[in-house]
């Protein structure tokens, strides 16, 4: 561990640039799925523990499509469409029935969904760690000390475009306005003629599509495996808990923060803490929130 620290700060500080870049690349993906969670949490008060499995499902879809040499942009569009429909179906069969139940029911039901999706993906794709190789050029800087694959830059750009598209959609479109109205006061929205059931379905489907898109990006910049979903779920929860609902800049900032934190802990403590790191940061965020609220004589709820 000490050697790793020396490497970082004494022998080759230039590596920091590499780590920071890596952190930003994965952080953008985390932020995308976290924004989806903030959306369903804020609008319909559903805490989706299958969030990470939606991401991994998107990744596997990209993997399968890439096998047939489908170009990346088309893959993206197909995955977004398929995951949107999938999200809608999940809403109709499951979420609609638990939406006005106790919060724990939604948590537990989506945890069940998470287990189910893991098993199905495991049956279809096997338990191996896989990745999509886009065979795109890699750029070197500082005598090979910093390498930046162009696929990662591309993924960052795509994540940015998606985020802009979603924000514009929420601001400008009729549906986006209906979603925001429903999140503020579902009863009033209903009275004013907004079909809240449809809004919920759309929101959940949109979240699913966002996760799928994030999954495509994960599959080209990182690795996917059927059981990796839970770490993404934990990350998105940590981000949303730290950033709050409906605060997009904070979500993006927290996403980058978690990306950096994980990359640094990975370098300093070794890969054994790869899963533990996001979980620990979630616990740290929760304890930190408690301490803030304790001053105000309140609790986290």
């Amino acid at each position, binding site marked *: 561990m000490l050697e790793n620290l020396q490497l970082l700060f004494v022998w080759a500080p230039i590596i920091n640039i590499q780590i920071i870049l890596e952190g930003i690349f994965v952080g953008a993906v985390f932020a995308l799925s976290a924004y989806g969670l903030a959306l369903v949490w804020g609008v319909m008060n559903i805490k989706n523990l299958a969030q990470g499995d939606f991401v991994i499902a998107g990744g596997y879809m990209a993997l399968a499509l890439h096998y047939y040499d489908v170009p990346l942009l088309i893959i993206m569009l197909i995955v977004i469409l398929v995951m949107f429909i999938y999200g809608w179906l999940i809403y109709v069969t499951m979420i609609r029935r638990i939406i006005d139940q106790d919060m724990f029911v939604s948590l537990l039901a989506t945890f069940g969904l998470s287990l189910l999706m893991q098993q199905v993906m495991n049956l279809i794709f096997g338990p191996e760690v896989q990745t999509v190789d886009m065979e795109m050029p890699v750029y070197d800087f500082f005598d090979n000390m910093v390498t930046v694959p162009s696929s990662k830059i591309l993924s960052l750009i795509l994540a940015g475009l998606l985020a802009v598209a979603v924000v514009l959609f929420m601001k400008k479109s009729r549906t986006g306005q209906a979603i925001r109205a429903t999140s503020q006061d579902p009863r009033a929205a209903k009275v004013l003629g907004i079909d809240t059931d449809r809004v919920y379905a759309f929101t959940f489907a949109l979240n699913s599509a966002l996760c799928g898109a994030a999954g495509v990006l994960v599959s080209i910049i990182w690795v996917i495996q059927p059981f990796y979903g839970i770490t993404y779920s934990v990350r998105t929860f940590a981000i949303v808990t730290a950033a709050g609902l409906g605060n997009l800049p904070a979500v993006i900032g927290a996403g980058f923060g978690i990306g950096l934190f994980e990359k640094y802990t990975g370098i300093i403590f070794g890969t054994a803490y790869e899963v533990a790191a996001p979980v620990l940061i979630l616990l740290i965020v929760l304890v930190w929130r408690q301490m803030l609220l304790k*001053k*105000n*004589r*309140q609790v986290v709820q």
Partner: protein
Amino acid sequence: MSEQLISVNDVSKSYGGVHANVDITMSVAKGSITGIIGPNGCGKTTLFNSIVGYHPIDKGSIKFENAEISKLRVGDIARLGMLRTFQQTRIYGKMNCVDNMQISVSHRSSSKTSIFASRKGEIKDRAESLLEFVGLYSKRNLISGDLSFGQQKLLEFAMALMNEPKVLLLDEPTAGINPTLINGLIDRLRRANEELGITLCVIEHNMRVIMNLASKIYCLSNGKMLASGTPSDLQNDQRVIDAYLGGS
């Protein structure tokens, strides 16, 4: 002058830009019934919440039995012997009335054994006699969430008495209660004060009730202390009359 149980000194509290309480100073004498009146939104409930610890105050001091409590949290303050009831009645909705009463025993000196004490015996007798006192004895085995609003309000009052507090802060005890029953409630409040020795501090909208009940009344308006004194003082105070008629 009698001993002050609660003394509030120069307390201010604002939410965002709204000054809910500005430089409030008041006190509640031991054994008395003190009233707080004022038009809607004048900061009565905010003051209550500051006293019992629901939010931090911006400045000032709140003392209970000469000890500073403005930094303590709700549970700690309650265990010192200061209880409050809620404007929107709060009871344990899925439990029956007797259970609601039994769990409301005082926790000021809860020892290891009292945590695991049986539910029969002395506690149950006291719970039932207090239910009788508020007139809910016949409903004692019903699930409390099924009671009507007025009955729940009485149950909450009985639960507070079960706790044997030193001082009880009541937030609009007569709101939502059938007018024909208000006299009975006033009588019970007075008996709780006289027979059980509980100091009362009451927020009330109903002028007739508070003028009959309290020995000293504070009137708030727009977050500031407008006037204080005996009921007859306030009845003749032009500022109070203006505040209520929307003059200011």
